[in-house]
């Protein structure tokens, strides 16, 4: 017999549960990850009495989550994508700010440099424009260095953020695994704790903010999480750990590996999306490229400015030396010597010192005679170098096969240049043990020459101090997984041919091959050495099969840039030679201004006469007057427009000479107002010095700006698109799973009314019982 009271009570219990659920929904109205819950109220099984079935009231059969799994996975996808773009955008905007600022970008500094150069050209003998030019030179270097440092800071920050992202991911995956473990206790679908599922969904969403994941729901109620190309991160109740470690290929970069029982596997290349993906993407594409481009611009500036500056002569009449130093490489090259007679080389003293290079020690010595000039001393020292057993004809043979060093007179200095060898890198030239048999006050002055990258530890050598010329550091980064002993070196030989790409040298057991990574093109293969895109690449040691070496030729160009000249008088704005018409000439031929073709020619500033020898009419002799005896360098037939190239200069003769006429090319001493070299340097502004001569320095920089701009713009656009996609997915989710207070209010009223009605039924049953009692 059905029981009115029991029936009502069952209803009361059901609606109490329903009201609790409503209040739970309302309580979680501010919880974004909350999925609204619905109660399902079913009729209880009826009781059969005779032919009739009597209802037994109601019961709360289930509390369900109103959820659409597809929408959740959509949200995760868009969250990953947006996370990537936001991280990328955050840093790209910073890079943009570094390189494109109107005040602090490179352009104002570069323009300022050329303008200052013009000002010096306008008034080459004045000091003020020269001081301003020194300032402008330093400004160019400082701008580039500051930008490079900013970029480096970003790089460091990225690497450290990768570290923290990895630990956050690990924390999240652990929690997911834990929840998986709890949920497997409630294998019955539909009976799983709704709020725990919400929590797991929230964790999955957090995870997809960090990285793109694939989620696979298991029969046992747990969710497996996969990253990259299918690496399992969470399996049931266990999670694998990600670790941040040095990249095998580029050891200064942080890579991400998955730690499993089998060891660590680098999965950096497979990771996409999320903040982590955005960081990797930004670092490996935009940041690297920006650093490479900025570095290349710095190398371009250094090389092109230096190349012209060393062709000039300064206010003291000395040959120009390098203005900038950067990574751009070349041989070990420099000079030592100086103004001996004013540097403690006294008459009667025997001066000696040691030159150490590649396992050899050469000890030149020279006794200063009365009346010796600086030139005599330089001659004497060079002659003494030549008496060494390992030196033949000015060439010192190193202990490394093929490695030599050539010494040569350069004014009163001795210049040197290393050649060849499998690895000219790390081969330095040390000068020490100088003694002069007198007061020991002899000093040798050191300076760099030619290549932008030879450094020296000190500008002078004294009895108490040594100095070392340090060659370019150009070792390619060996892969951390290399098993062989190979060493790969590279040096930049032609800045105009440089690309902004990175390179890899790979060994397949037989041949080394050089691969340009920007377009994955094999540039050269064989036993080496190679010349690829303006770089010489030399191989040493023994590579093992599968070994590889990474070359990033331009990256450090900007970071390593320094200036070498601070004295305004050392700015070489003049051309070291001039041409002169002898006033006794009868003929009316003219001689062009001399141009310098080889600034390092030791005889550049010798006085050379072009003499129309009466003994051989129609021809002229080119006579070097500064050799003893005078040397006839060449005899040439005259024609209108004939050019003469000797001793590193070139001139042209036009017009009608007469026998006996003399034209002279000589040291351009005293020419304080000669601005020819300044003009040539100012002309660099519009000259193509990069990309095989197609880009000016400014163009190279503006292409960097546009490159960064395009990428950043693209990212911003995509970010906006993704943001709206994510929003619409969230709308969808909200419309399905979100709590609507009005709806809850209505439910509240509905359930409350049901509850009140049932209460009334109970009171009716009470009355029924009472009336029965009374009737009894």
């Amino acid at each position: 017999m059905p029981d009115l009271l029991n029936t009502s009570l069952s209803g009361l219990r059901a609606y109490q549960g329903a009201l609790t659920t409503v209040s739970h929904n309302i309580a979680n109205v501010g919880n974004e990850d909350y999925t609204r819950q619905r109660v399902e109220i079913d009729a209880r099984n009826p009781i059969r009495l005779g032919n009739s079935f009597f209802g037994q009231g109601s019961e709360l059969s289930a509390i369900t989550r109103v959820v659409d799994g597809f929408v959740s996975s959509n949200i995760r996808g868009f969250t990953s994508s947006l996370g990537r773009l936001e991280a990328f955008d955050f840093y790209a905007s910073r890079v943009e700010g570094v390189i494109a600022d109107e005040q602090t970008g490179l352009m104002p500094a570069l323009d300022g440099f050329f303008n200052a150069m013009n000002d010096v050209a306008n008034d080459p003998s004045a000091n003020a424009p020269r001081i301003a030019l020194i300032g402008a030179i330093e400004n160019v270097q400082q701008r580039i260095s500051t930008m490079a440092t900013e970029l480096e800071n970003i790089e460091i920050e990225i690497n450290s953020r990768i570290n923290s992202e990895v630990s956050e991911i690990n924390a999240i995956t652990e929690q997911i695994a834990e929840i998986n473990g709890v949920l497997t206790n409630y294998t019955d679908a539909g009976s799983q704790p709704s709020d725990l599922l919400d929590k797991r969904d929230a964790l999955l969403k957090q995870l997809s903010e960090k990285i793109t994941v694939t989620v696979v729901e298991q029969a046992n109620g747990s969710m497996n999480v996969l990253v990259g190309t299918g690496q399992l991160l969470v399996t049931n109740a266990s999670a694998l750990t990600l670790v941040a470690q040095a990249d095998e290929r580029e050891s200064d970069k942080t890579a991400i590996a998955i730690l499993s029982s089998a060891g660590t596997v680098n999965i950096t290349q497979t990771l996409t999306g999320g903040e982590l993906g955005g960081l990797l993407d930004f670092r490996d594409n935009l940041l690297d490229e920006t650093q490479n481009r900025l570095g290349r611009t710095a190398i371009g500036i250094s090389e092109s400015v230096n190349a012209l500056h060393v062709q000039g002569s300064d206010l003291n009449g000395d040959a120009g030396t390098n203005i900038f130093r950067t990574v751009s490489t070349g041989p070990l090259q420099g000079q030592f010597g100086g103004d001996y007679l004013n540097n403690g080389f006294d008459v009667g003293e025997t001066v000696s010192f040691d030159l150490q290079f590649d396992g050899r020690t050469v000890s030149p010595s020279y006794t200063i005679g009365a009346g010796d000039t600086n030139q005599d001393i330089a001659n004497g020292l060079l002659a003494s170098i030549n008496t060494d057993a390992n030196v033949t004809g000015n060439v010192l043979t190193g202990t490394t096969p093929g490695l030599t060093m050539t010494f040569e007179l350069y004014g009163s200095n001795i210049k040197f240049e290393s050649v060849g060898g499998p690895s000219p890198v790390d081969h330095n030239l040390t000068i020490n043990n100088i003694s002069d048999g007198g007061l020991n006050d002899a000093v040798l002055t050191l300076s760099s020459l030619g290549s932008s990258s030879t450094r020296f530890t000190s500008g002078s050598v004294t009895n108490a101090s040594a100095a070392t010329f340090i060659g370019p550091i150009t070792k390619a980064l060996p892969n951390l997984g290399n098993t062989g002993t190979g060493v790969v070196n590279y040096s930049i030989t032609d800045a105009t041919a440089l690309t902004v790409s990175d390179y890899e040298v790979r060994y397949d057991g037989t041949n080394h091959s050089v691969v340009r990574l920007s377009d994955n093109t094999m540039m050269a293969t064989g036993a080496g050495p190679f010349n690829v895109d303006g770089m010489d690449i030399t191989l040493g040691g023994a590579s093992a099969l599968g070994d590889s070496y990474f070359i990033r030729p331009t990256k450090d160009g900007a970071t390593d840039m320094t200036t070498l000249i601070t004295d305004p008088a050392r700015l070489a704005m003049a051309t070291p030679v001039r041409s002169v018409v002898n006033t006794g000439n009868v003929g009316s031929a003219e001689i062009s201004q001399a141009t310098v073709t080889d600034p390092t020619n030791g005889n550049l500033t010798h006085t050379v006469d072009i003499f129309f020898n009466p003994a051989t009419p129609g021809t002229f002799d080119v006579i070097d007057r500064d050799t003893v005896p005078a040397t006839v360098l060449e005899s040439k037939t005259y024609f209108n427009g004939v050019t003469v190239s000797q001793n590193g200069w070139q001139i042209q003769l036009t017009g009608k000479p007469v026998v006996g006429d003399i034209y002279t090319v000589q040291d351009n001493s005293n020419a304080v107002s000669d601005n020819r070299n300044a003009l040539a340097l100012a002309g660099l502004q519009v000259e193509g010095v990069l990309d095989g001569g197609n880009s000016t320095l400014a163009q190279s920089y503006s292409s960097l700006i546009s490159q960064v701009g395009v990428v950043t713009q693209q990212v911003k656009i995509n970010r906006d698109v993704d943001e709206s996609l994510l929003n619409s997915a969230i709308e969808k989710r909200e419309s399905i799973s979100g709590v609507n207070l009005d709806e809850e209010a209505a439910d509240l009223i509905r359930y409350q009314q049901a509850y009140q009605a049932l209460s009334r039924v109970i009171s009716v049953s009470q009355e029924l019982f009472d009336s029965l009692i009374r009737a009894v």
Partner: protein
Amino acid sequence: MRVSTNLIHMQGLDSILRQQSELLRTQEEASTGKRVLMPSDDPSAASRLVDVDGALSQLVQFDENIGYATQRLSAEETSLKSSLLVLQRVRELSIQAANTASNDLQNQQVIASEMKEKLNELFDYANTRDENGDYLFSGSQSKTQAFSTDGIGNYTYNGDQGQLAMRIGSSRNVVASDSGADIFQLVRTGNGDFSVDANRTNLGIGKISTGSVQDNAAFQQHDYTLRFIDANNFEVFDDTAGAVVGPTPRAYAEGGMITFDGIELEISSAPAAGDEFTVKASRYQDVFTTLSDLVRELDNPGTGDLTGNFGGAYLANNFASGDAIGFDINFDGQTLNVAATAGATDAATATNIAAGIVAAGATDNGDGTYTLNGSTPGLSVTFEINAATNAIDFRTSGGNGANTSNLTLSNLTDAGGGDAVLQMSPNGNSVLSSTSISAAAGDSSFFVAGEPSATFLSQQIDNALNNIDRAMDSILNVQASVGGRMNTIDSQLADNEARSDNLESVRSDIVNVDITEAISRLTYQTTALQIAQQTFVKVQGLNLFQFL
């Protein structure tokens, strides 16, 4: 569609935030006036902006360079103009001198003294300094004085032939200086191809004309001497080749053209036998030397080398064989006490006197000549026995050419009869105070440089006029070139300005925001934001719970 309470809230808030960010962007654009704030706003515009800004900065610099170049060229032009005026005046003075009677020494000297002033003025212009104290005309050696002089007519150029070029356009340099060498020093002599002159000792009154080159192919740039064998015949000797040119002898006819080796010239009036004229390929001679030479000729006509002889017919003049003879030669502060023994023949006496001259301190040059150096550096007298006459020939040389020092013979002694007489005779334009000295009288006589012949002076003035014309040509050429460069600068300035205007407008198109549009956008966005905010509040207020 079902909406959740959260969604209503989120959307309202999103809309407000979006409006705010757009408003902020517009505000930034309006307040900076720029459309492109970051490269990502418009990458191609940003990169074009870099190019345009670079080009604009260059143009500003070019204009600055133009300022420098103009300043320098103007300074140069001023100096050139003044120099031309000086030369113009010198030219007038020369013509005036040419028209002055040759014996009017005082008048000549007045002209010479003004000319000397002008020479100094020109010298100062050539040494013009700029505001930094740099010399304008010493080529690249601007700290070195362009021209210097030793005070006795020698001028030296200390600079070089360097020129200062300046960049005034992206592909245009302008030369903003000219060297003193090109303006004042490397001036060709004569007519530019060759120069002519008459020998100072010519006896006739023939003058050689400036002449010209008629046949360039035949012109050899050689030096020639035209020698008159007699008054009606002459020969042309090529000094460079060392050979006689063409028909010889050539008949002289006054006013007739003389042609050889492509050269055409004439000799006027009446040359005398033995007269010589020179034709030399043009050489470089600085304008100061030209003027200084002319001043010297005018100022001190008694110029040129002393030439003459003494002795000769000794026996006839009581140099008795075996007599000890002595006499003194005074020259420019130096004295030779010559002692000799008269010989049996005139030739022997001459030899003895020559030996006496050497013994007295003259230098034996080893070629039969003996030289006595004067006190003035470079001034000397050279003696030589004339084999034909047995007289002792002498010739002074050097110094500044103004050999005002006399050669005096005195204190003739004769240990024999004391009756010896030394005969003397001048050559060229030298004059003698008396033709002999005698031991008995104890007198002295001196040779002094005479005035050049009127013909010679006139020839010198003609030659100087030619040289002055060449110097003026040289300055005019440079002046024309400076003018041309100024024109180049002007046209480049206009070019630069046009380019600059163009670039400015391109720049404005690239970067500048349309301010009207931006303001109206700002207004619109402000309204939109207000609406979003009000809507948010309204919608939030709607809730069923309010009615419970």
